[in-house]
């Protein structure tokens, strides 16, 4: 049933406004690549990191100034950005989040919210709210198909999203640490009993997720301007996608992001509705909440 719907929708889009399909998929890739690490943390460490987008923002800022200073292209910085963000995140985890894991959920939410604010405001303090952008040639690359012209650089986001999705799947199901992580996510007490160091896994998973986020920060920098609060919409949209997919469902995040990406771009395509594109995720969360609570009623 879904398949029929998807094929039909795709055909309609191609015939009517193919750019919507293309940009929709590119946006989907961006959102998915950022949301997947949040899903990883939620599924294994069981916390919602409200500072998720802000870590990406920090990585982007760090990459910008490092690249400016060293005269290098941000693409080269992707891996270092990932590693440094992972290390930074691990430290933050050990200092703060780790202490809140046993505390009520309330405390965790407030804590990560406080982190998000602290990060945003420190950047605001040091760099003001000025936007920074890296002028790069290759991001304006485009392709022509018949009468259709569209930007092609953003396809990298789709590639990243797919890489992350399959990479994580492989990691979680085929490697020892990955399987240990899955075990911890499903049953922390049981995992501890069989000798797995649960807190070490938590720290590791958190760092891994932030490595993915950091890499995305560098990549994000190539295409977009950065400013202190650039991360916040990504936190919320990531949560929306993770909520839609359900905890632990990484492929689900991919499909959900396609829905979000295409819906936003449909609205962006028309001048009258352009301003409403950023409300789509909110509507989707509401829909998720309503359908979850109705399901809860019946069974």
């Amino acid at each position, binding site marked *: 049933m879904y398949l029929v719907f998807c094929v039909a929708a795709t055909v309609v889009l191609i015939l009517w406004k193919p750019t919507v399909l293309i940009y929709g998929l590119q946006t989907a890739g961006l959102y998915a690549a950022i949301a997947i690490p949040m899903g990883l943390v939620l599924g294994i460490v069981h916390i919602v990191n409200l500072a998720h987008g802000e870590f990406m923002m920090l990585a982007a800022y760090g990459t910008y100034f490092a690249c400016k200073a060293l005269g290098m292209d941000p693409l080269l910085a992707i891996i270092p950005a990932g590693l440094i963000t992972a290390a930074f995140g691990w430290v933050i985890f050990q200092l703060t989040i780790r202490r809140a894991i046993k505390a009520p959920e309330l405390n965790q939410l407030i804590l990560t919210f406080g982190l998000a604010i602290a990060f945003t405001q420190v950047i605001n303090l040091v760099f003001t709210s000025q936007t920074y952008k890296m002028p790069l040639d290759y991001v304006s690359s485009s392709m022509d198909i018949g009468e259709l012209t569209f930007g092609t650089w953003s396809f990298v986001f789709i590639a990243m999203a797919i890489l992350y999705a399959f990479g994580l799947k492989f990691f979680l199901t085929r490697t020892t640490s990955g399987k240990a992580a899955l075990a911890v996510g499903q049953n922390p007490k049981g995992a501890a009993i069989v000798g797995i160091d649960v807190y070490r896994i938590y720290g590791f998973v958190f760092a891994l997720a932030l490595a993915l986020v950091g890499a995305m920060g560098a990549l994000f920098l190539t295409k977009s301007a950065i400013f202190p609060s650039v991360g916040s919409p990504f936190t919320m949209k990531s949560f929306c996608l993770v909520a839609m997919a359900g905890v632990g469902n990484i492929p689900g995040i991919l499909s959900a992001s396609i829905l979000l990406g295409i819906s936003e771009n449909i609205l962006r395509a028309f001048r009258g509705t352009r301003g409403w594109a950023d409300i789509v995720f909110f509507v989707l969360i509401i829909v998720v909440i309503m359908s979850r609570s109705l399901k*809860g*009623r*019946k*069974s």
Partner: protein
Amino acid sequence: MGLVAVNKVSFAMDESEILGIIGPNGAGKTTFINLVSGIIMPSDGKIEYKGEDITYAPAHERARKGIARTYQLIHPLENLSLIENIMVGSIFARGNSLKAARRKAEALCSELGLRDLDRDTSRLTILEVKKMEIARALANEPEVLFLDEVMAGLNADETKDLIATVQKIAKERKLAVGVVEHVMGVIRELTHRVIVLEAGELIAQGPYEEVSKNKRVIEAYLGGAA
């Protein structure tokens, strides 16, 4: 379809009757109580109480209708004192004013032998915790009360004390009481009648003496013929 946890369990309870609900682990006893009290919703079928269909009625409504239960793992409301914990049902299930609820809760406490009522709930002995949990449920002024392994963790004297208490309240309040227990000694002494659940189905009912000799029941507990 998955595992059917509770399957067409149907029986009657009389006022002042104490009914034992027994069965091997995983038989569906707590699930049954959760279904009746509205903590979980059935995936199929109907739940009727006094002729009324309450299948999808939320838990708080069932509490108001007269169904009360205790919990196996007791987590008192830590930011309320002992007596305030007991007042809750009186205020919300019965709609009493704070003053009236306090009076009633005090009466319940003296009946059950609880003292020093403004205490923090973190400083109660295990017997007091059990009594508080029962009082909490009684504050609803229910017609039906389910006690889910309320004797767990008590020593012989404490168990005797609690058995006597339960018998007294059942009689004085004309309550129908359903008691889930694993210790057969308690069942034998406390209950008038027993029903046996196995794998979600009711496989026997009757007085304990009879049921304990029932072949099917023994097999259920011991695992059946090899």
